[in-house]
């Protein structure tokens, strides 16, 4: 089954037009070609937005906004850079603006956990690593608690964590995307990791006490 899906995907990829060709068609006046581009990149863009915001509706709105920005700025796209990377910069900057705009960052974890969240915290404390890996993906509360932990970070620290850990971006790439120095990126990454560890330790302790 997996093999059949993979071969279908490879067949699709070999017949599909490359991004650069579609961009050329959009710039030549064929707006329909942009639909194909957005369909191709939308899942990845939405997943990236969901790493910053737990509300799926909001993540979808931000993804949509990113495509609108990309469309209006398409003339400034330089072909020596992959379209996916260029689009990712737009998404990241949009999410950064939104994180700063919201400005309601709890300095400390809010301690009111609902029953499923407490259950997940118990599991993290007591279950075997194997069970944790298996269970987390299906548990909404695991995602919610992770977002709550990440919400305690400063917006710039959170940006660095997501770009470095989730997107596998190098320090130089992050610095270029955000317009920061590499030293600033390293300091932010260090502080973000320290802060996250501190908050996660507290959450684990809270789970043990309940």
């Amino acid at each position, binding site marked *: 089954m997996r093999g059949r899906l*993979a071969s279908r*995907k*490879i067949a699709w*990829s*070999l017949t*599909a037009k*490359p991004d650069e*060709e579609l961009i050329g068609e959009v710039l030549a006046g064929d707006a329909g070609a942009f639909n194909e581009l957005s369909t191709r990149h939308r899942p*990845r863009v939405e*997943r990236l937005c*969901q*790493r910053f915001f737990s509300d799926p509706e909001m993540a979808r709105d931000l993804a949509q906004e990113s495509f609108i920005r990309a469309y209006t700025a398409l003339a400034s796209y330089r072909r020596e850079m992959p379209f996916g990377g260029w689009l990712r910069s737009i998404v990241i900057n949009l999410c950064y603006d939104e994180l700063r705009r919201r400005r309601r960052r709890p300095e400390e974890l809010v301690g009111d956990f609902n029953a499923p969240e407490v259950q997940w915290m118990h599991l*993290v*404390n007591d279950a075997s*690593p*194997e069970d*944790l*890996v298996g269970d*987390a*993906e299906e*548990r909404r509360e*695991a*995602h919610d*608690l*992770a*977002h709550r*932990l*990440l919400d305690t970070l400063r917006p710039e620290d959170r940006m660095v*964590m*997501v770009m*470095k*850990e*989730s*997107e*596998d971006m*190098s320090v130089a790439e992050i610095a270029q995307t955000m317009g920061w120095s590499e030293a600033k990126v390293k300091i932010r*990454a260090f502080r*973000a*990791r*320290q802060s*996250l*560890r501190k908050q*996660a*330790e507290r*959450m*684990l302790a809270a789970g043990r006490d309940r």
Partner: protein
Amino acid sequence: MNCFETRQEFPALWRKTATEERRAELLAHLKSCAKCDHAFRVFALTAPVLYSATEPGGRIAIERRVGALARRGAMVSRGSTWQRQMVAMCAGVMVLFMASAAAYLSVTVPVSSYSDEITNSESALDLPAADTSVMGNDFAG
């Protein structure tokens, strides 16, 4: 496997991109080292958002590879005549080879035993080790 190596492999363990052998080593180390076990539990609290299974070591990496393959194919198709002829020749040879292999297998090997062999083969389940050396995942310890 030492503590540093183990913690570097947390994302691969979470994304299920580690090989069976590596995974077994990691789990054995976590069982024997209380500090790494604790570090993994700290890691697990943010992992559902930061390291979800499909990103980027899994599906996205495959998409990137397939995309690169497609781009390379497109570049060749825009290339000179001899390049196109070479590609057409290679494709023809591959099709012939696959067709003859399929015909041979359908005659000599019963379908059920062949599929059983694939399903039960350990080597069919082996996955390449994920390269997580760039992640610097040391926030847990």
